[in-house]
């Protein structure tokens, strides 16, 4: 029996003559593939964790060496003077860059959240089926535009537009970058927000309507609270996109080390600084290490955002 199973593979003509052996073989192969596949899928599952830790480890290894010298972490975080290549007085202060990132992201979210969630509600609740399909395709198209192209639009279209509309001297500023980031994060918000609203059972809607609620009341009192988690996830993914975006903000914010006093001031973000300067910094030099330290900072910011999101979602769920 055992022997036959082994030789069977080499002699397929005999297969029909040994049905019992064939079944056993198939069973063995099946359980084997089952096992292998299970492992592959497990590996896929934990690979995300591995990559995150791997990247964190690498960034940390490149940047952390600086912290043990006479480098002051406090000065790094609190000084606005960013002069990494000065000949006379090198200063690594990233406060303006942090404020730059925060100001662009906040402004972008102020624009994107109402638009994104509004569009999600419209697509999921008000559209007829054909308009819905059409809108979804267009919105996905919006998500597929490369960020360099957005940057291009920022420089060539928005720059003169902002100058003339708002009567400001520079068109490359917080508002320009924020508008681009808002346009880039709206598609994410719409598709995830729409999924969240779709997941609310129709019985909720029917019950609300039966109680005499208007359409607005159904959305405001029933659907949005019911889909809270998903909508929050949509917003936070948008925030993540905005914090991490590099190319468009590099081109559209003016790239000026500056604490902004209004949305019409040019700024520079953390990501843009890394992108613009890492190419030149010689490997292992303090400038290089500082840029990796900025990387750690960015990592911590996104980690904090995600963690808060998780905690909020869990808190909401418990209630």
């Amino acid at each position, binding site marked *: 029996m055992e022997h036959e199973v082994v030789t069977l593979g080499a002699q397929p003509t005999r297969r029909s003559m040994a049905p019992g052996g064939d079944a056993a073989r198939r069973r063995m192969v099946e359980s084997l593939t089952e096992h292998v596949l299970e492992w592959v899928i497990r590996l896929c599952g*934990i690979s995300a*964790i*591995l990559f995150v*830790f*791997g990247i964190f*480890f*690498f960034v940390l290894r490149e940047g952390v060496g600086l912290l043990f010298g006479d480098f002051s972490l406090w000065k790094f975080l609190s000084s*606005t*003077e*960013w*002069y*990494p*290549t*000065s*000949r*006379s*007085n090198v200063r690594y202060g990233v406060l*303006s860059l942090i404020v730059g990132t925060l100001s662009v992201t906040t402004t972008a979210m102020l624009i994107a959240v109402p638009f994104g969630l509004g569009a999600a509600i419209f697509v999921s609740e008000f559209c007829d089926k054909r308009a819905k399909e059409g809108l979804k395709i267009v919105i996905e198209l919006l998500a597929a535009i490369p960020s360099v192209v957005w940057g291009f639009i920022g*420089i060539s279209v928005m*720059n*003169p537009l902002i*100058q003339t509309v708002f*009567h*400001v*001297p*520079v*068109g*490359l500023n917080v508002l320009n970058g924020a508008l681009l980031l808002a346009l880039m994060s709206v598609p994410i918000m719409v598709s995830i927000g729409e999924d969240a609203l779709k997941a609310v059972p129709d019985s909720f809607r029917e019950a609300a309507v039966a109680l005499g609620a208007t359409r607005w009341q159904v959305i405001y009192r029933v659907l949005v609270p019911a889909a809270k988690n998903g909508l929050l996830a949509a917003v936070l993914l948008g925030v993540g996109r905005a914090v991490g975006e590099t190319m468009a903000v*590099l081109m559209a914010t*003016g*790239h*000026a*080390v*500056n604490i902004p006093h209004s949305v019409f001031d*040019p700024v*520079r973000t953390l990501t843009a600084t890394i992108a*613009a*300067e890492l*190419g*030149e*910094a*010689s490997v292992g030099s303090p400038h290089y290490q500082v840029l990796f330290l900025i990387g750690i900072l960015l990592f911590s910011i996104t980690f904090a955002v995600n963690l808060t999101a998780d905690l909020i979602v869990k808190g909401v769920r418990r209630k």
Partner: protein
Amino acid sequence: MINATLMLRWSGAALLALGLLGASCKRKTETTEATVSSATAAPTDKKKESIQNIGSDTMVNLAQAWAEEYGKLAPNVSIEVSGGGSGVGIAALINGTANIANASRKLEPEELEKAKKQTGKEPQEFMVGYDGLAIYVSKSNPIEEISLEDLSEIYREGGKFNKWSDLGIKSIPGAKSDDIIRVSRQNNSGTYHYFREVVICKKADYKSGSLDMNGSKDVVELVAKTPGAIGYSGLGYATGDVKIVKVSKKKGEPAVMPAIASVLDKTYPISRPLFMYTPGEPDPQVKAYLSWIMAEPGQKIVEKSGYVPLNKK
């Protein structure tokens, strides 16, 4: 209970894999070093016919024009040009990944030392042309000339001039405010270093808050679109949409327009030589290219691209 043991098992596996990842990281750096050293060996390898030419953004158009023309003369040689800034080119020279590094500034002594230590060879310098650093303002700006001292006050950290009225410019048509919008370059740019050294003074720094562009062309484009802006960039990037301001060495001295003649006779105060560096003695292929650049046909292209050719003497 089962969950807890499972989790323990998995976290153990994760840790193990993490260790492996760390080890592979280490191995990776070793292999990159190996490729780097083979790249430095490349110039001596006569079969390799591709020349890597990396560096200065000021020179990238010029380098491209040279590479194209030379490609017609010597079809067996392919020259790959990329920009990024003088700093990038010099970093590539030090790492040995460039056959020719373009730089719009001289190599710093420390960089020379580093290159010697890394590649074991003395980098060779070739002067291939000159560039006038033009001061650009928007077309509507009435300013005609500016002195180096005024430029320094505008750009230097702690400099006094922040408004156009400080320079005696009453109003600029189309400008929304009196502020001088300083357009500068990213800090690995050779132009940035040169401007700091010659205009701002070696020991000082730029004023914070300037718009730092990533390319010579971007400076000119932004100035063209921003009425209250001032910027510096290579003469080769001048377009019809901006105005070039005459520059004087000191207040009261005659101001000079950047041009081939004024750069060559050194009356224009902010002009600089353009360099190409090779790691060690260039191999015949690269040498032929460099001597073609420095000879008549190459220098014609320099002039055609808006730069200043070497003095024929």
